[in-house]
């Protein structure tokens, strides 16, 4: 969408306020993570509902909401209209896989697709919104809002730096994203749920627990097994989908044009 010709442009003060909110949101997520990892041995199995669960919930949620407040008003209408589509894709595919006996989630296809087409900020907002709206049907995904936002942001950054120009680079980017996302989401699973929400992932955690690991260590290791594979699959699926889109649809997105996200969509050729 081109900037409006008849309406005043947003003031720079508003842009500065949004930047501040973005930084605050990221800081809230990072501070919560550091706090949880440093304090973990004290009370993880000392009783549920301990302070850590509340801190994990509130810190990650506040961070995710700040990111949404900062990013959502800046997105062009064409991206905002795509967000519900991404959420539906996440929910339809994630609901199906989550209930089967596969230790994957595949609940981020829509988020990563938006990140590839519209950039890291849109990806982060979509990830966080996805968790919040999905919690209408499944409240257990709500605490993972920050992790989902991180996945969307990292996917957008990978797309911006050309990881989707070659099909074989997409799973590599997904693998790395999965490692980071898994490590960040593990404390949520450990402190809020005291485990994982799926049967197959639970079995992997049990295996590590039987070797005497603490709960957080076992869940982090499980996340390091499941998440990189999961995100590698998701990134590959998204790359296949993005290349299946007609050229006209792909070039509709300014982010794809400007950063030459997909091979064969250079700005010189596009018109």
């Amino acid at each position: 969408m081109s900037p409006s010709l008849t309406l005043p442009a947003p003031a720079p003060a508003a842009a500065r306020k949004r930047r501040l909110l973005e930084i605050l949101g990221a800081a809230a997520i990072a501070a919560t993570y550091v706090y949880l990892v440093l304090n973990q041995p004290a009370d993880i199995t000392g009783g549920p509902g301990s302070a850590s669960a509340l801190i994990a919930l509130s810190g990650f949620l506040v961070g995710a909401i700040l990111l949404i407040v900062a990013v959502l008003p800046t997105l062009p209408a064409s991206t905002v209209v795509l967000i519900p589509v991404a959420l539906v894709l996440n929910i339809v595919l994630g609901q199906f896989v989550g209930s089967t006996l596969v230790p994957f989630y595949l609940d981020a296809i829509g988020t990563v697709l938006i990140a590839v087409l519209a950039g890291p900020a849109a990806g982060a907002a979509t990830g966080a919104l996805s968790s919040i709206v999905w919690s209408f049907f499944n409240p257990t995904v709500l605490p993972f809002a920050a992790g989902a936002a991180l996945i969307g942001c990292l996917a957008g950054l990978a797309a911006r730096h050309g990881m989707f120009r070659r099909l074989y680079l997409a799973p590599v980017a997904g693998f790395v994203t999965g490692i980071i996302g898994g490590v960040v989401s593990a404390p949520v699973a450990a402190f809020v749920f005291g485990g994982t929400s799926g049967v197959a992932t639970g079995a992997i955690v049990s295996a590590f627990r039987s070797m005497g690991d603490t709960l957080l260590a076992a869940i982090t290791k499980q996340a390091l097994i499941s998440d990189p594979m999961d995100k590698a699959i998701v990134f590959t699926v998204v790359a296949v989908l993005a290349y299946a889109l007609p050229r006209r649809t792909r070039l509709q997105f300014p982010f794809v044009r400007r950063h030459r996200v997909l091979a064969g969509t250079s700005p010189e050729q596009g018109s």
Partner: protein
Amino acid sequence: MRLHPLTSLAAACSTAVITTAAASLPLSLAVMGAAVVLSARGGTARRLLPAAAAVLLPLGLSLLVMHGLFFPEGRTVLAQWGVARVTAEGLAFALERAAQLGAVVLALLVFSFSVSVPDLVAVLPSRGVHGRFAFVLASTLTLLPAITSRVERIRQAQESRGLVVRRGVLHRAAAFRLQAVPLVLSLIEDAGTRTAALEARGFSNPGPRTSYRDVPDPRGQRVLRAALLAAAAAAVAARLLLTQAGS
């Protein structure tokens, strides 16, 4: 009396927060029972219970296997097979966690199954962040059933062209691609059309909006909302103070 959507949202959220903060098994079970009774009286139990079961059964099973069989911190061993040890502490931990999560899930589901989405969207201010969030929420909730039926139509169309899902990962992946590509394509095309329509109606313009839907918000409910949020904040503060004092 009909509850304002924000009042029921505040009630559900503060119930969830207080149950998490209190972390007591009897309270969690009481909240679960109250949620089921409320949804039965509201006539949503038939839709709510399967949804809650789909979430809670795998979660509960996973917790039971994880902590029931392997709980290295447990002392009271009830049974042992090889590396697996059933400990009383592990079972208690799994039960408490499952009850607490069950209470939170049921409280939030009672809200989301009983709230009228048009009312909820109408009470959110219609521009800025709130307006966009309301659009995303309402649009997702209305798209979901439409897309489920579109997936079905695409599957039928591909089957009439000779798609047979055979066993094996590669066959399944190919079948997935044949159905996902048309779905995503049509969704993105639709979104483009919708963008033009929304822009023509001033979706991203600043300025006041008029809503045709008026949701009454009596004074009593506003006070109740404030009280519920204060109670949730107090519960969190009490839990944090107790933990500080305990350690």
